[in-house]
């Protein structure tokens, strides 16, 4: 789930105005070497039903990550390994490792509101967007992010509200090119982990439909934990499935 990490990194490193750029770059570099362990609970709601999943995620930098689903029992033991640009999946029920073809990787992830844009993004918000402050309200700064001309992002603009006491975002709103809202992220329950603040409750909500959303709760987060390299090899898929 390194994909979730990227936005986290962006939220925590985003500072105000252009003085930020140097600092952002340093922080960015800093983050890259990190090993992070997380236990996540995800609730996906759509028109017809609600579904909850729990998973454990191990990641090294932005290129390697290993995820194991631990709940519900039906899907327990399913593992995903992503190395650079390739993705594999192991399904214990059929005892098979499947390589996910690139075309499937570009689709929505398991029915959630996380789109291919999130999945495939290589570069950071820092590289792809130009920030501009549009409002200050106490410690909350509202920044408008406009994509750079050549940036390969689908959004017309993103408006983010950052709490400067923790340097975490409270709300991100995503707009299409016609300036219509498409979806928004809400962040809450910020906690401190070592040097960093991180919201442990996230919600991705479709702007059109009230009951279409995905909720993510970070139940456990450990930075700089020792993660064995064994997690990032193909053998990990089966080995750590139990």
């Amino acid at each position, binding site marked *: 789930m390194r994909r979730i990490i990227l936005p986290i990194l962006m939220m925590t490193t985003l500072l105000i105005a252009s003085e930020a750029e140097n600092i952002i770059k340093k922080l960015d570099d800093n983050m890259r070497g990190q090993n992070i362990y997380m236990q996540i609970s995800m609730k996906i709601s759509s028109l017809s039903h609600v579904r909850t999943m729990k998973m454990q995620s191990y990641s090294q930098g932005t290129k390697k990550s290993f995820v194991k689903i631990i709940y519900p029992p039906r899907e327990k033991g399913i593992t995903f390994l992503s190395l650079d640009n*390739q993705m594999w999946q192991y399904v214990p029920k059929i005892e098979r490792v499947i390589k996910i073809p690139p075309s499937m*990787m570009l689709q929505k992830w398991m029915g959630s509101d996380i*789109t291919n844009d999130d999945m495939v993004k*290589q570069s950071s918000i820092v590289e792809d967007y130009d920030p501009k402050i549009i409002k200050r309200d106490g410690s909350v700064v509202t920044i408008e992010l406009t994509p750079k001309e050549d940036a390969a*992002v689908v959004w017309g603009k993103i408006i983010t509200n950052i709490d400067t006491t923790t340097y975490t975002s409270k709300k991100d709103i995503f707009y299409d090119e016609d300036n219509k809202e498409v979806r928004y992220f809400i962040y809450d329950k910020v906690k401190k982990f070592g040097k960093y603040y991180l919201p442990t409750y996230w919600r991705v909500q479709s702007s059109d439909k009230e009951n279409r959303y995905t909720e993510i709760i970070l139940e456990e987060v450990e930075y700089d934990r020792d993660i064995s390299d064994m997690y990032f090899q193909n053998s990990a898929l089966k080995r750590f499935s139990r």
Partner: protein
Amino acid sequence: MYKLILKMAWKNSFLRPARTLLVITMIAVSMSMMLAIQGLYDGMVKNMIDKNKRSGSGDISLYAQDYRVEKDIKYIIKDALKIKEDIQKLEGVKAVVLRLLADGLLSTARKSSFASIHGIDLNEEEEFGEFSKFLKQGEINLNKRGALIGIELAKTLKVRVGSKIIFSAQDSSGDINSIALRVRGILQTTNVGLDTNSIFVDIKSLHKFLGTSSKDATQIAVMGEDEKLLHVVKSNYSNLDVKSFLELQPMIKQMQEMMVIFNSITFFIVMSVVFIGIFGVVYVSILDRIREFGILLGIGMQYKYIRVQIFLESIIVGLIGYLGGAVLGIVFLVYLRDYGLDLSSFSDALEMWGYEAVITGTIKVSYFTSTFWAIITASVLSVIIPLRKIKKLNPIEVIKAEK
């Protein structure tokens, strides 16, 4: 003597003006309608083939072996640039272009769709197939990450000129890469595969994106109708998959053949009925004048002159009918060529089958020559039976007898 015969034939043709006029009208109307229909059908097929060739494969296309089945970027023609230069030197070649193709995902903030991206060189495509004529909206411009999108694909993704689209695909090293593009124009090629599925970008940009060498290409398309050219190319490049337009689209070949058959049948039927019409009139006109002919024979006129006169009468009527038909036909055909037949209420189906909604006709000289001969033949044949009647005449009996 023949001058006299001609004069008499002319006068006699218009003995009963109304009758003669009717025949002439019949010939003219039938002929012009038939010409119009032939022009329309031929125009349809020609149009479709033409557009298909210009936007797609050209007269001949070269691919790497297995590319058409596997559709993977790794099946690329190496040193395509050199091959292109060599082919350009061959006799009969009008234009050659290189194209780079890849499949991937096209997305906007709200929707994604599978699509094919075509890397092209605008100037060369313009020379190759007048590419700019396919433009429906916007402008032909691939600068600064510009892209041209097929009309049906634009509808599916709900994009307009100026919209931003993101194309994601696997590049040559296996990585998934994305590129931001701006829609600069919307195309309608009536080549169904292209309109529903494709975007066009500058080939150099696409090479960069995919990490392929600009000397290579997925497809080499050649315009050149020479029969021998195909053989030459096939034998020179036997390691590549070389196919002619008709080999890639066998359906169209059959359609052409069907059109020819269909037009011939129509032609034959119509001419037969015209023949019946001319026959009736000629027969009656001769019967009316049987006394006159009898008298002529009686005073010593040779049968052969009478025969010539009858032929001339029939041919005069046929010719005037032909001219009327030709004039009317030209009017119809020019109208169809310049304005076309508007069938846009059926546009969905027509476009699905690769036709335009407004069908323009073509004009071929053969229409006019073949109808000319047909009418002359009908006129000539129609006098044979009446002539026999005259031949058997006994002048005395005829003069004596009451009408």
